[in-house]
C-alpha cells in the first residue's frame, strides 16, 4: 500500500525540518584580507559542497571579528593576531583554536621612496628609517591584525607613533592603501590586498622577506558554553574542514594573479 498524500507531506516536512535544524547556517567573522584576496570566494563554495551547508561571513578587522565572537554574534572566527587570539581563548570566548595558514606582510610606499628604504628586509629597521626621515605613514588604526602587528613593530623600536606624519584611518586595508596612495605615504599591508590595489594606488613594495613579516591565521570556534544557541556543530565542521587534507590542499592551491598567497600550515607552523 502506498503511503497517503498527507503522510508523504508530513514526512517531507519532517525531513525539511530535520535538515534545517541540522544544517543550520554557519556565521563566520573574518578579516578583510581573506575576503579582498579572493580566498574565501575560492574556498567557501568547496566547503559548502563538502558539508552540504551554508556559511555566511562578514569581513572586518581582527579586533572587530573577535569582538563579534565574544558577543556571540558569529559561530566561528578566522583571524590573524596570535596574541589577541590566545587572549580570546584564555578568556573562554573561543575553543579549539587551530593554525590554518599564513601569508606575509609587506611595507609599501611611493615610487619616489622619500625615506630610502626600498630593498630592505627588516621591518623594524625600515620603520625606524621612515620615522627618522619624517615620511608620512598611514596606519589602519582599526585594531585589526595588521594594525596590531604594526603597533607591535613600533613598540619594538621604542617609537610612539603619532604626529602629523602618522595618519590613522580606522578603516580596512583597501581604504588604507588608497589613502596611502593619495598621500604618497608608506603603509604596512598584507601581500594579498596590496596586490589587488597595486595598480590603483601606484604604490610599490619597499620592504619584504623577513621572518618578522609572517602573518599566521588561526580559526577558532566560539565557546558554546557561553552561547548555547550558537551553531557550534557548524563551527567545528568548518574548523575540521579547514585543517583537513582537503581544506589545506585547497588553501595551497589558491592562486591570485598567478601567485600563491596563502600557505597551509596546520600541524607544522613555520613560526
Amino acid at each position, binding site marked *: 500500500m502506498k503511503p497517503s498524500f498527507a503522510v508523504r507531506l508530513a514526512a517531507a516536512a519532517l525531513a525539511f525540518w530535520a535538515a534545517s535544524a541540522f544544517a543550520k547556517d554557519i556565521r563566520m567573522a573574518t578579516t578583510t584580507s581573506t575576503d579582498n584576496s579572493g580566498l574565501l570566494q575560492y574556498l567557501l563554495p568547496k566547503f559548502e559542497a563538502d558539508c552540504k551547508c551554508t556559511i555566511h561571513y562578514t569581513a572586518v578587522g581582527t579586533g*572587530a571579528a573577535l569582538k563579534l565572537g565574544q558577543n556571540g554574534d558569529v559561530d566561528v572566527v578566522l583571524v590573524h593576531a596570535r596574541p589577541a587570539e590566545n587572549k580570546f581563548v584564555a578568556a573562554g570566548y573561543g575553543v579549539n583554536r587551530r593554525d590554518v595558514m599564513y601569508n606575509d606582510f609587506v611595507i609599501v610606499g611611493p615610487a619616489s621612496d622619500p625615506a630610502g628604504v626600498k630593498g630592505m628586509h627588516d621591518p623594524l629597521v625600515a620603520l625606524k628609517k621612515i620615522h627618522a626621515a619624517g615620511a608620512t605613514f598611514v596606519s589602519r588604526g582599526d585594531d585589526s591584525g595588521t594594525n596590531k602587528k604594526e603597533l607591535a613593530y613600533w613598540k619594538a623600536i621604542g617609537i610612539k607613533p603619532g604626529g602629523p606624519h602618522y595618519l*590613522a584611518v*580606522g*578603516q580596512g586595508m583597501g581604504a588604507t592603501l588608497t*589613502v596611502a596612495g593619495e598621500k604618497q605615504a608608506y603603509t604596512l599591508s598584507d601581500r594579498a590586498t596590496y596586490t589587488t590595489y597595486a595598480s590603483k594606488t601606484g604604490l610599490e613594495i619597499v620592504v619584504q622577506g623577513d621572518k618578522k613579516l609572517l602573518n599566521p591565521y588561526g580559526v577558532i570556534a566560539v565557546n558554546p558554553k557561553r552561547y548555547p544557541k550558537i551553531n557550534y556543530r557548524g563551527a567545528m565542521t568548518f574548523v575540521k574542514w579547514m585543517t583537513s587534507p582537503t581544506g589545506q590542499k585547497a588553501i595551497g592551491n589558491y592562486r591570485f594573479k598567478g601567485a600563491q598567497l596563502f600557505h597551509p600550515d596546520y600541524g607544522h607552523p613555520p613560526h
Partner: protein
Amino acid sequence: MDLLQPTRQAFALLFGGDPELWQIIWLSLWVSVGAIALVAAPSIALGFLLAKKRFPGQRAAVVLVQALLSFPTVVIGLVIYLLLSRRGPLGSFELLFTPWAIMVGYMLIAFPILVVFTISAVQGADPRVYETARCLGAGRFAASLTTLREVRFGILAAVVNGFGRAISEVGCAIMVGGNIAGLTRNIPTAIALETTKGDFAQGIALGFVLMVVALGVNVLLALLQGQGGLR
C-alpha cells in the same frame, strides 16, 4: 551585551575632557559651520531669484534644485573624490583626505536645502512688502533685502536645516575625508567606524554630543523666532 559600562565610559570621556574626543567634535563643528557660512549667501540669493524672477526655464530650475534635495550624499562624495583624487583633474591641489574636501562636500549637500527653503519662505511672503518698499523709493536690491528680512525666520530655518544635514552626514565625509584621526575624523565617521571596531563608549559619547547640538540649534532657532516661532 552590557550597555551600562560603555555609557559610563562615554560620559567619563566627555567630561574628563578626552582630547581625542573633543578634537573630533571640534573638527565636526568648524567644518560644518564653515561650509554653511560659505554657501549660505549665494544659496539664499539664488533661492530668492528663483522665487521672484520670471524667466524661461525657471520652473525647470526649481524642479532641479528640489531633486537635488534627495540626491544621495555618497554620489556627491564620489564626484568630489573623482575630481580631487591624485589622478583627477584637481589632483595637483592635494585636497583629497583633508578637511577642505569634507567642507566642499557639505557645501554641496547644504546648497539645495538652503535654496529650496528660501524659495518657499520668499514665496510665502506678502508680495506687497516688496512693492511697498519699491514705492517708498527703495532700489531693487534694497527692496529684496526688505523681503528677506521679512522672512528671516524661514531663512534661519533653512540655515539650521542645512547645518543639521551637514554635521550628521557620514557617507561623503568618509569617502573624501578618509576618517584620518586628528585630521578628518568627525563625529559621524567616528561613530560609524568605532562601532565596527566594537568600541562603543566613544560612539555613545559622540552620539550624545550630536543630539545635544541638534537640540541646541533648534532651541536657539525657536528662541530667536520668539512668539512668532512658538505660536
